[in-house]
C-alpha cells in the first residue's frame, strides 16, 4: 500500500489538471471503501470533504481574479469585497480535490493497515526496533482510556478545569501512568529475553500475489503518468484568466486507471 500511496500522491501533486486529480480521488475513495468498508469511511470522508470545501470557499472568497464574475461585494468590505468569480471557485474546487485526494491516498496507514502490519514490514535489520515499536503501540489505547478515567475521577473529587495549568491534575497522572506502563512492559520484555542477541521470526511478512499486483500497477501508473507529463500529453490546466475545461488525454487517463488496482486486490483477498 505504501507504493500505491506514493504513486497517488505523486500524480495528484504533479498535475494541475483537475480531471486527473479527480481520477486519483475516485481511485483512493473506491480503494479505501473496498479495504475498510463504507461504514468506517463515513466519518473521515465527511471530515475531509469539509476541509476540502473550506479550502475551495476560501479561494472563492479571497481570490478576486478571473473574467467570469458571478457577483460582486462592495470593495469597502475588507478581504471579501470585490468580484467573486467562476474562475476563483473552479480553482478553489481543484485545490479541494487535491487536498481530499492527498489525504485519502495516505489514509490506508490508519484505515486499512494495523500499525503492527507496518512494523512487521520493516527490514530484518530493524527487527529489534520493530519489536520495541510494536510493544509501545500496544500502550497507545490504554493512554486514551487512562485519560478519560483520570479526568472523570478527578472531577468526582471536586476538581474542575480552570485554565491550562489546572489540567496538570489530569495530565500528570496520565503521563506517570503511561511511563509506569512503559517500564512494566520493558520489564516484561526483558524477562522474555529481549535484546539477548540476533532474533528469528515466527512468520516473516510475506508479500502475496495481490500485494505484488498493487505494487506493479502503482509503478505502471507512476511511470505512465510521468512519461505523459514529459511528453506533454498530461496537459496542465489554468483557471485564470478565463475558465476552460481541462484537456483529457487517453494515456494519462489510463495511468490513473491503474491506481484502481487495490479495489481488485481487496476483492481477491476476500
Amino acid at each position, binding site marked *: 500500500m505504501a507504493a500505491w500511496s506514493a504513486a497517488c500522491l505523486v500524480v495528484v501533486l504533479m498535475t494541475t489538471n483537475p480531471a486527473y486529480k479527480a481520477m486519483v480521488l475516485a481511485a483512493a475513495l473506491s480503494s479505501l471503501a473496498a479495504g475498510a468498508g463504507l461504514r468506517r469511511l463515513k466519518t473521515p470522508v465527511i471530515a475531509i470533504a469539509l476541509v476540502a470545501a473550506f479550502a475551495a470557499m476560501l479561494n472563492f472568497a479571497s481570490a478576486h481574479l478571473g473574467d467570469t464574475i458571478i457577483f460582486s461585494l462592495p470593495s469597502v468590505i475588507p478581504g471579501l469585497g470585490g468580484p467573486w468569480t467562476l474562475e476563483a471557485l473552479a480553482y478553489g474546487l481543484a485545490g479541494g480535490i487535491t487536498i481530499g485526494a492527498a489525504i485519502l491516498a495516505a489514509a490506508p496507514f490508519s484505515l486499512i493497515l*494495523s500499525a*503492527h502490519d507496518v512494523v512487521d514490514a520493516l527490514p530484518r535489520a530493524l527487527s529489534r526496533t520493530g*519489536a520495541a515499536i*510494536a*510493544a509501545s503501540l*500496544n*500502550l497507545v*489505547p*490504554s493512554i486514551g482510556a*487512562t485519560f478519560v*478515567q*483520570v479526568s*472523570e*475521577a*478527578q472531577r*468526582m*473529587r*471536586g*476538581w474542575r478545569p480552570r485554565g491550562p495549568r489546572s489540567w496538570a*491534575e489530569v495530565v*500528570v*497522572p*496520565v503521563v*506517570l*501512568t503511561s511511563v*509506569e*506502563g512503559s517500564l*512494566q*512492559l*520493558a*520489564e*516484561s*520484555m*526483558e*524477562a*522474555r*529475553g*529481549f*535484546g*539477548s*542477541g*540476533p*532474533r*528469528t*521470526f*515466527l*512468520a*516473516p511478512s510475506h508479500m502475496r500475489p495481490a500485494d505484488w499486483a498493487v505494487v506493479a500497477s502503482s509503478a505502471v501508473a507512476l511511470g505512465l503518468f510521468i512519461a505523459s507529463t514529459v511528453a506533454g500529453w498530461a496537459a496542465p490546466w489554468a483557471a485564470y484568466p478565463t475558465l476552460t475545461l481541462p484537456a483529457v488525454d487517453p494515456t494519462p487517463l489510463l495511468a490513473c486507471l491503474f491506481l484502481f488496482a487495490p479495489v481488485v486486490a481487496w476483492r481477491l483477498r476476500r
Partner: protein
Amino acid sequence: MALASIAHLTYAYPDSPAPALAGANLSIDGGITLVAGPSGGGKSTLLRVFNGLVPHFHGGRISGCAEVSGMQVIATPTRRLARHVGFVFQDPELQTVYATVEREVAFGLENAAVPAAQIPARVHDALAEAGAQHLAGRAMRTLSGGERQRVALASALAMQPELVVLDEPTSQLDPDGADLVLDAVRRVAAAGRAVVISEHRLQPLMEAATSLATVEAGRVTTSSPSAWQPPPAPARPQPHAAAGDEVAALTRVAAGFDGRTVLENVELTVGRGEVVALMGPNGGGKTTLLRVLAGLLRPSSGSVTRRPGRVAYLPQNPAALLHRPSVRDEVSFTLDHAGGTRRGETPDRMLEALGLLHVAGRYPRDLSSGERQRAAAAAVLAGSPALALLDEPTRGMDASARDSLARVIEDLRWRGAAIVVATHDADLRAAVADRTLTVRDGAVR
C-alpha cells in the same frame, strides 16, 4: 540439589533506606511453592530475584546469594536467565508485545533465536499446556483478562523453562478468569514443572501446593501448606434499620456507549445508610450502571435523580489518579476540593481507617500495588460523600486490606451515605451488603 535457592539475601531498591528483602532464605524444588504475605511485604521483590529482574532491571543494593539452574543470579543477566525462568506478571494489559496470540507466544522464542521452523510447534505446545490452544489465531485486544493471562503463561512455557514464576496473576481478574488461570497453573505443575506463585487468595491453590513461603517485612518464613488455616470469614454487618431517605434513583433508564445499548429499562433506588452490592458477569452492565449513577454517563432514556451532596466514584484501576507528593496530600486534595477541610475533616482519619497511616508521608506510586489501591480508595472516599460508588474496589487487595475497606464502607454507611459496590468479591459482599442485585445482559434483578 535445589532447582533454585536464595541464601541470606538482602536487597534494597535504589534510594530506599529500608531493605525490601532482609536476610531471605528459600529453596525451591519441584511442585508449587505458594508465596503469601501482606501487600508491601516483599513478595514481588522476592519473585523478581529468580529471573534477575532484581537486581539487574531495578538496580539497588544486593548482598547474599541467589542461584537458579546452577547459575548465579547476581552475575547472570536477566535475558540469559529468561531461557530457564518463565515469568508471568500481575497486569495482563502491560505484558503484551504483539497484536496476535501466536506472535505473542513466539516473542521469547524469537529473542532466543530458536530456528523459525521450530517455533510454530513450540507455540502450539505451549498454548496447549496453558489450556489456551483455542485462542490461537485471535487478536490480543479481543481477549479477556483471564485469556490474556493464559497467553502470558503460554509465552513463559514456550521457552521450556525449568521454573515458572507468577506474580499475583489473578489479582486483576474476575473469578471466572482467575479460576481458568489457576487451573492452568495446576496443570503446568502436574506436567512436572516447578512453579512459584504469589497470591492473595490462597485457598484455591493450597491443596495443590507443596510448599508455603510467607514474606512479611522483607523476611521469608517457610511452612507446610497442610498447617495453613484459612482466615476467619469477615464479620457480617449488624442488623440494620431499613434504608433511609432516597439518595439516588434510576427510573426506566436505558444507557450505553459507542452506539451500543448496555442497560435497558433499569429501575433502582438507593437510600441513606444503605449498601447495595451489584454482581454479575463482566460486560453485564455494572460499570455502566455506576457511571450513570455518578452522572458521568447520560442515559439515552429514563431519568436519574440524586439528592444534593458529594458523589464519590472509585473507578477500576483508581491508582492511576495518584500523583501528589504524598499519600496524605492525595486525601487532602479531595478534602480541599470537596469542602471536607472546611468541615474540619482531616486526611489522617481516613488513612488510619484504611491502615495507611504508616505510609502517609510516602510518595503514593512508590507503594506496593495493594497499598496503592487503598491509597486511591482513601483519596476518593474522603470528604463525607452522600453517595459512594465503588467499582471492583478489592481488586489486588489482600484479606486485611479488604477488611479495612469493609470497615470504611461500614463507617460511611453509619454516617448516612448511600453506597453502591460493583464487586465479584463474595467476602466483601457478605461483609457489607444490605441488598445484592444482579446486573446481567443490561437488566437489574
